[in-house]
């Protein structure tokens, strides 16, 4: 049980790291249509070309942790969401290769812009849709593999919400990593996206508690809401803080160029925490808990030292990698 709980937390950590890190780099792709000049697009892509691969590795890591620690959940979720997962993978292929080919292309550059931008947007949308339909619950019968149960108004809403959230992360990241026009423009976009994201969080939360009885009970029975109230309150405070930083920039008074990004990251963390509060202890809501899905101890114990040694190590050298490329993104030709 304790071991299973540990892996549940590891899985949560992996998913959160993925959402945060690939979130801002998928978001860059989503923001592409709002940056028209070729040089701006170069800048946007250059700001993430050294990290996207590492960021996407967290997706693989999330997948294999699920596979290793909760094989039944891995089997259930991936086969049930066959089409949205495949669609996400197709999209990720297009945006991934665009990193390599866009800078090397002359005439085909507009196509790579589209591949990068549409790929990022579709991948983000699919992830949001997966999340939404997982929260709604999967039909337990055999039809789960053949129906289109994952297309609902709610899952479409969560799809767009995740897109907005990723775009917000990206705008804040650009705000931190750029100067001049791109910085000003991303501050403007970030402010808009902040409003959209908060609105989306509110609607999704209300819709969830209105439609899901057990999640409603989790939040509102007894004094639960009192214990949980910091989540929405801090969310609002953080959003206000980010708004202030961004707004002050337009008045030329802001000195906190990194803070909006960390605020946006905190928003994601709080949203994610809210989600876990609602779903715990289920991996597939109302069907499969993490305890039932857990691998035998022999497997969990074998992987334990690997997790304990390598996850901190990975975080350390990932951090070092970001340090090497710290500071603003420079536009002179750099690279291999």
């Amino acid at each position, binding site marked *: 049980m304790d071991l299973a709980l540990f892996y549940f937390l590891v899985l949560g950590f992996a998913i959160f790291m993925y959402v945060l890190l690939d979130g801002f780099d998928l978001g860059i792709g989503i923001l592409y249509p709002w940056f028209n000049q070729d040089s701006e697009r170069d800048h946007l892509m250059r700001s993430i070309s*050294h*990290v996207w*691969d*590492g960021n*996407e*590795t967290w997706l*693989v*890591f999330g*997948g*294999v*942790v699920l*596979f*290793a620690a*909760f*094989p*039944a959940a891995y*089997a*259930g*979720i*991936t*086969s049930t969401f*066959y*089409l949205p*997962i*495949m669609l996400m*993978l*197709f999209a*990720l*292929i297009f945006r991934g*290769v665009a*990193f*390599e*080919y866009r800078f*090397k292309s002359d005439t085909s550059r507009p196509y790579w812009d589209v591949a990068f931008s549409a790929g990022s947007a579709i991948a983000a949308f699919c992830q949001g849709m997966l999340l939404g339909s997982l929260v709604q619950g999967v039909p337990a019968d*055999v039809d789960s*593999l*053949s129906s289109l149960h994952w297309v609902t108004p709610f899952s479409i809403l969560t799809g767009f919400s995740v897109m907005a959230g990723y775009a917000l992360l990206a705008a804040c990241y650009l705000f931190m990593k750029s100067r001049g026009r791109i910085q000003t423009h991303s501050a403007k976009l970030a402010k808009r996206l902040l409003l959209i994201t908060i609105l989306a969080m509110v609607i999704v939360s209300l819709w969830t508690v209105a439609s899901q009885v057990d999640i409603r009970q989790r939040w509102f029975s007894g004094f639960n809401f009192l214990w949980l109230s910091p989540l929405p309150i801090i969310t609002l405070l953080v959003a206000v803080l980010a708004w202030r930083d961004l707004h002050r920039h337009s008045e030329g008074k802001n*000195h906190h160029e990194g803070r909006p990004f960390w605020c946006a990251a905190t928003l994601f963390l709080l949203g994610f925490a809210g989600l876990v509060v609602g779903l715990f202890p289920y991996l597939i809501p109302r069907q499969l808990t993490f305890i039932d899905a857990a*691998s*035998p101890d*022999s*497997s969990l114990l*074998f*992987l334990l030292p*690997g997790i304990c040694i*390598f*996850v901190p190590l*990975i975080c350390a*050298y*990932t951090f070092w*990698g970001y340090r*090497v*490329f*710290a*500071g*603003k993104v*420079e536009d*002179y030709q*750099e690279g*291999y």
Partner: protein
Amino acid sequence: MDLDVAILSRIQFAFTVSFHIIFPSITIGLATLIAIWEGLWLKTHNPYYLQLAKFWIKPFAITFGMGVVSGIVLSYEFGTNFSKFSEITGAVLGPLMAYEVLTAFFMEAGFLGVMLFGWQRVGRKLHFFSTLVVMTGTWISAFWIIVANSWMQTPTGYKIINGKFEVESWMEVIFNPSMPYRLTHMVVASLITATFVVAGISAYYLLKKKNIPFAKKGLSMCMWFALVLTPLQAWIGDMHGLNVREHQPTKLAAMEGIWPAEEANVPLLLFAMPNMKTESNDYEVGIPNLGSMILTHSWDGAVQGLKAVPPEDRPNVPLVFWSFRVMVGIGFGMMGIAVLALLLRRKGRLFKNKPFLALVALFTPMGVIAVLAGWYVVEIGRQPWIVYNLVRTTEIVSPLPPERVLFTLIMFVIIYSLLIGVYLYFMRKLIKKGPPSMTALEQQLIGMKAPGYALAWVKTLQHKEQQTNESPANESQNKTQGDK
């Protein structure tokens, strides 16, 4: 027509995994070569080594990128298309793959950024270190995935509880009987593949009389590597074959086209059309007893044949038989080239003999083809089993609607065809552009683009900004600092 979801899922997996293996089999070897060149450059300061490293890092980058995007697909396909399989083997294979991600993927990705984009941001030694880490990452990744594959071929150290595999001994799972052979065979194959890619392009340059000193260095080095690696590979392959005879005799029988339940005095078949209906070979041409010699290391040794198992337990014999011959044929061709290179070198004609150069250029993709053929032997040869003698491939497929799998299969075919076309197009473009000129390299060593330059610049800039914020009056002083 009724569509069979099992067949579709298997075709899709075969297609996506075949596409994927093209790229790692190049990058494992190429990362190693780049690390060798960079190391030699640091040691000898011979700029041609830097030129080699700097040029080949570009094809490496796009090949690596292709490997990443096609690899992510695989890590989810186990679940999407083979849900039952991932459920029953998850406790064994899951942790192995988790270790692959933890010990290899993150490391490769984390240091790849520095290896590709960090020339100007870190010092030479730290850059070399990053290259070494990426190389090590590719090797470790090969280790874990081969462990997982080998366990499915020769499962040990497990017990089955409620129809699911659990692990009794991780040592036995990891060091299962076929793992050491398969791993060394694959890693050496990858080194050879990269060697012939580099040799082939170098030969092409020599034929076109472009970048001659660069191409001579590349070709010469690669031919020495090939001279060592190809006989080594033949020896490892032979050992691997003996291991297959012991643990997967049916696969071996298919590789050699041996039908009788037990056959002594096995001939080595040079040509044959294995016929699964008549359970015999058509148009057989062979060398008597040589098969026994190779397979048992004795002149009249007996081997188990295909008829020892019922027809439903046999793989597709012609595919295995011919894939094996393609692999071995290419292997001997490569060995021949390496020996020929040695002879030409002694006559001083290595860089001048046009037919030889054309042959080497022709062999550029042969390593990849041999690797693919080899994996077809391994994977088709073990059918109908997914976990050898324990689980049948047809039993573990996700019960998806066939149209859905057909749709994704078609999408994969379209997308991957597009991708391979684009990949080859950009490879061609890089090759046509050629290596960076010596003057460009010199600039990178002393000027704006020297290692550490960007970092120093950014730091000065940050420093400057801070000072400006604190006391705007000092601006003139900052300027002189910035100019330094």
